[in-house]
């Protein structure tokens, strides 16, 4: 069997090119891999379109300012929205000092020994623990052992443990961007470790740390499973008034509505999702803007 003679063509520069099966395979590969990249993004657009289309009849200001109800058309997300806001503020208040503190310890103080390696390995593994396991920990530790009950405080503490690895990793990255010369300059001027950190290093990488914190909050805001596990209520007709008060949150309210068979409640779920996505995407956009401004500010 003889191979067919190759087709010879001239390209734009007039150079002879042999058209072969190889070129065809290459083009198939590029096409397939581009499709593999574009298809998931297309699916994401379909998802956004589907949710937004479903939600349209319920997207009203009333929806934000009403309490949940047995009548789907009157039900709103006020307690869930307030609950989520409270959770986020509390979670941030707990995660930020601990997460940044741990990052500072690992980057600035820890010697290269077994203990710091253990902490690093441990944090990497914690980042991979399924979120529902944190729910089980929160249930036994915060709800039962510390007797905080099924409260806002227990919910925020659980979420805080969940996003701690994200804040630690991001803060370490931020600390690593500060050049050694800046640190040494501070020490040379007589600053101790603490003074150098609090006056020079941390203020310099604060925007970077803040980016990590915002991304962590964007993750925490959508977490449902751990809050269900610690027993957050799915039907709340009042606003939380203290740290110990029972609560619900946006994703839980959405889950509650999705779980009902009636399609009117599915409409409510879609509207709740739109609110959730708007808040989450806003947080992400702020983080990206912050990162871009940061890259412009310090040029070494």
């Amino acid at each position, binding site marked *: 069997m003889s191979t067919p003679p190759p087709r010879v063509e001239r390209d734009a520069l007039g150079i002879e090119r042999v058209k072969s099966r190889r070129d065809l395979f290459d083009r198939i590969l590029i096409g397939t891999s581009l499709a593999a990249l574009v298809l998931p993004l297309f699916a994401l657009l379909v998802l956004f379109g589907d949710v937004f289309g479903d939600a349209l009849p319920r997207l009203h200001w009333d929806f934000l300012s009403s309490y949940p109800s047995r009548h789907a058309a009157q039900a709103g997300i006020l307690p869930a929205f307030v609950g989520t806001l409270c959770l986020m503020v509390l979670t941030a208040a707990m995660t930020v000092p601990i997460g940044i503190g*741990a990052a500072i310890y690992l980057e600035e103080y820890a010697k290269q020994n077994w203990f710091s390696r253990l902490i690093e*390995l441990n944090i990497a593994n914690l980042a991979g623990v*399924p979120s529902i396991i944190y729910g*089980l920990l929160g249930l036994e530790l915060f709800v039962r052992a510390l007797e905080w009950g099924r409260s806002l405080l227990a919910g925020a503490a659980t979420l805080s443990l969940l996003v701690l690895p994200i804040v630690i990793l991001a803060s370490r990255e931020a600390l690593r961007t500060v050049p050694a010369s800046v640190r040494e300059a501070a020490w040379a001027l007589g600053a101790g470790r603490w003074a150098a950190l609090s006056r020079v290093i941390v203020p310099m990488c604060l925007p970077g740390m803040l980016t990590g914190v915002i991304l962590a909050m964007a993750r925490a805001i959508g977490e449902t*499973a751990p809050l269900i*596990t610690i027993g957050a209520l799915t039907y709340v007709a009042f606003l939380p008034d203290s740290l110990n008060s029972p609560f619900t949150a946006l994703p839980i309210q959405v889950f509650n509505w*999705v779980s009902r068979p009636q399609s009117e409640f599915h409409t409510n779920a879609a509207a709740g999702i739109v609110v959730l996505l708007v808040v989450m995407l806003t947080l992400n956009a702020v983080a990206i803007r912050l990162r871009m401004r940061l890259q412009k500010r310090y040029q070494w």
Partner: protein
Amino acid sequence: MSKDVSIIGREPWSERVARSAFLVCGALSIFVTAGIVFVLVSQSWGFFAEVSPWQFLGDTQWTPLFADKHYGIWPLLTGTLLTTAIAAAVALPTGLFAAIYLSEFATPRARQLLKPALEVLAGVPTVVYGYFALTFLTPLLQRVVPGLAGFNALSPGIVMGLMIVPIVASLSEDALFAVPPSLREGAYALGAGRLATTFRVVVPAAVSGIGASVILGFSRAIGETMVVAIAAGQQPTLTLDPRVPIATMTAYIVQVSLGDTPTGTTEYRTIFAVGLGLFLMTLVLNLLSSSLRRRLTAGGQS
């Protein structure tokens, strides 16, 4: 460092306070892990005192909430493995090819745009994916797949796959990008096309990093909760049929948490026994993945 300070005088108290405060923050993460292990093991201990491990591993029914109680983990395990397998079947080829495009063919500008876009997929809350699987994908699939129930393993599995694509793509892309350009140029110089270069040279050189991304994807799928809790039906069934309602380990924990099972009962402890299994499975996969990734950074030039 304390040596240098001692030339001038004693380390001031503020330095010592700061040092210990940061140490406490760093050590806290170890207490979190210890807490997880303690809670899961102590509650599971109570569970296995009442239910023999042989029944747990031998029985083929899981009905702790019914009058006729059976504690066989297999229905939950097959449910978890089934949805994970479907998710992997979607995420592995898609993620790998997306990584190949980003690393081998995309212009720097396209990379800069497409990578964050892909990250959005990973950031969408999982209840949203659950809603999408239940109200959009399942009705769509019911037109194509005969006998597909309203709750099934197929639809949440596919949606979970979509969710995992960015994890597989991003880590695989790092691995492919780390392959030295000289290897590609060598292949081109020998007359290989892009197809041959990619699959005979670049992918084999990055295989441990790609493996790490795949394993991490599996771990994510096993631990994923809300998609399956919403769209798979919460019915523990020993089956590998993707068209019928099933329950995963995670969905079972959610189901018990939503009910009012009294504390201290065997039914209550089941969620910790299931949680321990879940924790061990994901831990092994995560450790495997990070050891593969370390091999990548240690021996990049192979």
